[in-house]
């Protein structure tokens, strides 16, 4: 309970810091923000218009007052409006987030379906052909650019075979290629990680002791070794949720998939700063939440920490 409270306080402090950084970041961007905002419409701008907007955004005030206003809006969940669409950033993000979430989850499932069997087989049949194949897969998989893999899939499944759509969103079919691409690209790391972690556990003396008690090999792998081996995998997962999120950016652009990743890249190319800012805040909070969940999962897997409250190594 104390842990959770501590976590929460840390989280709030983190939010403050984050709000400050993203405020400063936008201030650092070269050029006059007012001109940037108004020029998008490509209509000539009058002096009065500029002054009016400047007043409205309190740009006359000193920086800390500006920050105060910005902070007040930030905690009221007001992330401003997009320069281009004029819509509130938060509602745009929220409307597009489910698509990205779907893609992330589908990719995760692909990743798990590939890496757990492959990593386990690879460890159990070390130096046999299954192991060689999965190590080759891990090596090539970690070297292949994910967007190129996606392009190859489009070429094969959409252009040549014509069985799957290459872009857009809507049906289940639309999510197959993007999630396959991302899932395969991500699983390379985990095949490797699970393999080495399992091999390490299989060499432990407690495995020999379990064998000496007449426990079957299958039970030993499933109940004695596997759980232990998942710990580094789960710890790592918290770190690589970021590569998953950034992976979705590239994949969404590639497949013209209407998630928040595509949205932010469009915003970057059109210099639509409030959207970029909103995305940063949104993703950061998301990543922090995931890390908290991972921490809880870690505690569940490792009773020593759960019962003794030992810090994570």
């Amino acid at each position, binding site marked *: 309970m104390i842990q959770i409270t501590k976590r929460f306080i840390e989280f709030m402090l983190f939010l403050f810091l984050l709000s400050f950084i993203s405020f400063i970041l936008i201030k650092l961007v070269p050029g006059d923000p007012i001109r940037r905002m108004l020029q998008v419409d490509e209509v000539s701008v009058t002096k009065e218009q500029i002054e009016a907007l400047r007043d409205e955004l309190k740009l006359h005030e000193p920086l800390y007052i500006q920050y105060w206003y910005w902070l007040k809006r930030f905690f009221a969940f007001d992330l401003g409006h997009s320069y281009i669409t004029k819509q509130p950033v938060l509602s745009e993000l929220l409307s597009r987030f489910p698509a990205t979430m779907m893609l992330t989850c589908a990719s995760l499932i692909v990743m798990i379906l590939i890496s757990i069997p492959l990593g386990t087989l690879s460890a159990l049949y070390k130096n046999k052909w299954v192991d060689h194949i999965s190590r080759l897969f891990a090596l090539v998989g970690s070297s292949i650019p994910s967007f190129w893999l996606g392009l190859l899939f489009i070429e094969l499944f959409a252009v040549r075979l014509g069985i799957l759509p290459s872009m857009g969103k809507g049906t289940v079919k639309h999510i197959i290629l993007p999630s396959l691409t991302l899932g395969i690209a991500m699983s390379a790391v985990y095949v490797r990680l699970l393999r080495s972690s399992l091999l390490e556990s299989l060499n432990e*003396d407690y495995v020999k002791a379990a064998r000496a008690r007449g426990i079957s090999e299958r039970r030993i792998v499933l109940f004695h070794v596997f759980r232990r081996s998942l710990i580094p995998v789960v710890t790592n997962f918290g770190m690589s949720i970021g590569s998953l999120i950034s992976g979705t950016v590239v994949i969404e652009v590639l497949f013209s998939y209407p998630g928040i990743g595509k949205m932010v890249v469009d915003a970057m190319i059109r210099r639509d700063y409030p959207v970029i800012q909103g995305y940063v805040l949104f993703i950061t909070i998301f990543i922090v939440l995931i890390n908290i969940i991972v921490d809880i999962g870690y505690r569940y897997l490792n009773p020593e920490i759960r019962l003794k409250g030992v810090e994570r190594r």
Partner: protein
Amino acid sequence: MSLLTVRHLHISCRNKPIVKNIDFTVRQGEWFTLIGESGSGKSITASTIGGLLPKEMSIAAGHVLFDNKDITHLSNKEFQKLRGKEISYVFQDYQSSLTPFMKIGKQMDEMIQAHCSLTKNERREIALQALEDVQLPTKRVYNSYPFQLSGGQLQRASIAMAIMLNPKLLIADEPTTALDSITAVHVLEVIANIKEKINCAILFITHDLRLARKYSNTIAVMKQGEIVEAGTKESVIYHPSHPYTKRLLGAVPTIKSSTSPAKLDLILQ
């Protein structure tokens, strides 16, 4: 009546011989001690009996007979049935004798389930009884994770598991080496008591002569993969014939060659 007979056993590791022509017999209900320095091949020999040799090692020649059956080349499945039920092990490293992250009760339960078809309550009864036999607080240990127990408690818990299903042979591979001397004496006592209770034979492996002398009936001395001397406790300790055995005896506090058996007894205690 002989329970375990090892005949002309040769073991090699990647074509390099590491155990050479081992011969010995453990009789039913006997305490048989295999003594030697580390690296003398005694633990390898112990592993061979239950089919627990590491992958890179293999039996080059010889036989292992257990209960009048040749068990040298059993399949993995057949060994599984034997281990824990007929032949049990206790290892040196108590910390890794039990799977971390798995409650001790769960591990005992799993072991009984692997060998007998009993109801959940019957299994629990057996496990608790075994914990009581090794003088542990039964319920608490049953519901504990390994990291919640002390070294001596852990080793007693693994002894409890080893004797739970009344094996005919208990192989204790340096069970006290990692413990402090007071705990070690206690653990040895526990093993001796259990032996009386279920009347199993014990193959005790150690490098420490002091431990060998108290409970052993028969002692075999191993050196560099070979048995250099074997016989009853009295003949090996009081009338050693091989220079290595003499040296082993010499390694224990100062003993002059003229020391009488009675005096030696005192020192060794």
